[in-house]
């Protein structure tokens, strides 16, 4: 039996920009929980290149980040990084501006196993300057942390993170 690769949960975003900090908030609370061997938590700030570092090291990745999509604030989607349809990377490539499309393109160019990276996208209520999460996301934070914990365990077991 082949052991499943270890999993790194990466919390992305900036707590100075409202709900953009939800990735870090989830990661910080997840790190306080009892995680099984093989799981670790990293805080990425605005640096999603950490995803590629982890893939290069042979680990699976669950990137937790705020993302705009249809749905209520606090709703969650899981997206595999190698799914088709990422837009072309932003023209203005910068260290602050590395978006997931860029990470995808760069990972593909380097032939990294992008199928091992998932995004846990959390719908924010507000993305604007100011410290702390919105009341809406603060209310559902325990549920989001539990969801990230469950997703980590599933990935350690070789499953997709978002199933039941």
């Amino acid at each position: 039996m082949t052991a499943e690769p270890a999993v790194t949960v990466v919390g992305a975003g900036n707590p100075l920009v409202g709900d953009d900090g939800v990735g870090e908030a989830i990661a910080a609370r997840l790190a306080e929980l009892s995680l099984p061997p093989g799981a670790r938590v990293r805080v990425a700030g605005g640096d999603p290149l950490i995803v590629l570092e982890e893939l290069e090291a042979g680990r699976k990745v669950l990137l937790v980040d705020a993302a705009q999509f249809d749905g209520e604030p606090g709703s969650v989607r899981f997206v595999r990084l190698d799914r088709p349809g990422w837009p072309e990377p932003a023209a203005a490539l910068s260290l602050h501006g590395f978006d997931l499309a860029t990470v995808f393109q760069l990972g593909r160019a380097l032939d990294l196993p992008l199928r091992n990276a998932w995004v846990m996208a959390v719908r924010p209520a507000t993305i604007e300057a100011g410290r702390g999460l919105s009341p809406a996301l603060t209310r559902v934070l325990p549920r989001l942390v539990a969801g990230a914990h469950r997703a980590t365990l599933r990935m350690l077991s070789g499953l997709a993170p978002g199933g039941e």
Partner: protein
Amino acid sequence: MGKSTSISVHHVTRVEGHGNIVVDLKDGTLTRCELQIVESPRFFEALLKDRPHDEAPRITCRICGICSVGHATAAIHAVEAALGIAPGPKTRALRRLNMCGEWLQSHVLHAYFLVAPDLFHAPSVIPLATTHPEIVRRALRLKGLANEICYAISGRHVMPISYLPGGMGHWPSAAALEVLHARLVAARADVEATVELFAPIEWPDFSQEIEALAALEEDGAYPMMGGPIHSSRGKVFAPGAYREASAEHIVDHSAAKHTRGADGPVRVGALARFQLAHERLGPAARQAAAALNLSPATRNPFHYTPAQVVESVQAFEEAITLTELLLGDPSPEERAPVTRPRGGVGVGLAEVPRGTLIHDYEIGSDGRIVRANCVIPTAQNLAAIEADMRAFVPALVARPKDEITRAMEMLVRAYDPCISCAVHLLDVSFVGQGHDGGAAGPESPTAGGRG
């Protein structure tokens, strides 16, 4: 009929943040040459107001993901200066080691991801990864190593929250330092390969004398952790007199303030540090400078990148030395002293990858921050960038427009500007009852840049 040329680079690529270049030429004469900083202001200082002083490093480290250790360092220096606290040698060593990690990460990313594509005639790092994957993989390895330094020292890869007045809230175990040391030693080949990669590069031939500034440590170490501000004009300024060295002022076309020295623009950052403190480099960094043909006499801003490569070597070698120092030091961890709230004013400096970072705080008698001012390296370099653009363009006027454009972008990029950090300095004013204050009103969303 005279010939007019107008170059407008909307959104300079491969710099951090959003800026535009605008150049107007009429009959071969330069009539306008601006680096327009167009990002929304982010009001960092307002986030500090009324907060407990010990929160300052934890708040300001979120200003920028690339310079987060530098902001935490300048912030804790300002708080400690205000409260009259002097950290012990072990704390200072730990903080310097963390800064080594940030220098290595930032310099490697700039050199490999933002500059190298120009050198290999690739539009960005993505096609470079296709044609030269070994180069990009090496960059990722070095970046990962730098992140591991920060993780071992502060418990987080970026945005450290362990800086306390007079101490640190996280101390690495001996086992963690052993692992880090082994990783560092194993990475030496990648550092040497970095020097080899950039050594043959012939940088554009351009030179301009501009005052260089750097905060030099009084113990003779290579400038990293702050100290009096030294000028290439021979002047020395105490940290509290930073406005005499680099005075902020507002310009119409920039959401970031500019600064000026006694005689005009100033340069800060790797090139300025190398110019002012090259004799403080260690042997390996000196060898790298020789291999890169980098002379302290250079006044060519394109040499920022080889200076960053030299500083990468310095940071890497210092990281090994500091790790060994900490491993061999049996003294106990230094605990942050318990301090009663008291007021004070303090200025904290740090030499972050892009130059001299200044935090200036006034702390009230209740221990809360009354006033804060942050002077960002990129803001200090903006006037120098424009001065270089004005001097550089006349030599380019006979070239095709796209070549001029590319050359101007390379020039701006050479300074490694962090625009997201810089755009927090605009004073907002409103005229009359209605909103007539331009694009910088508080209604403007400020979510741009996660820093």
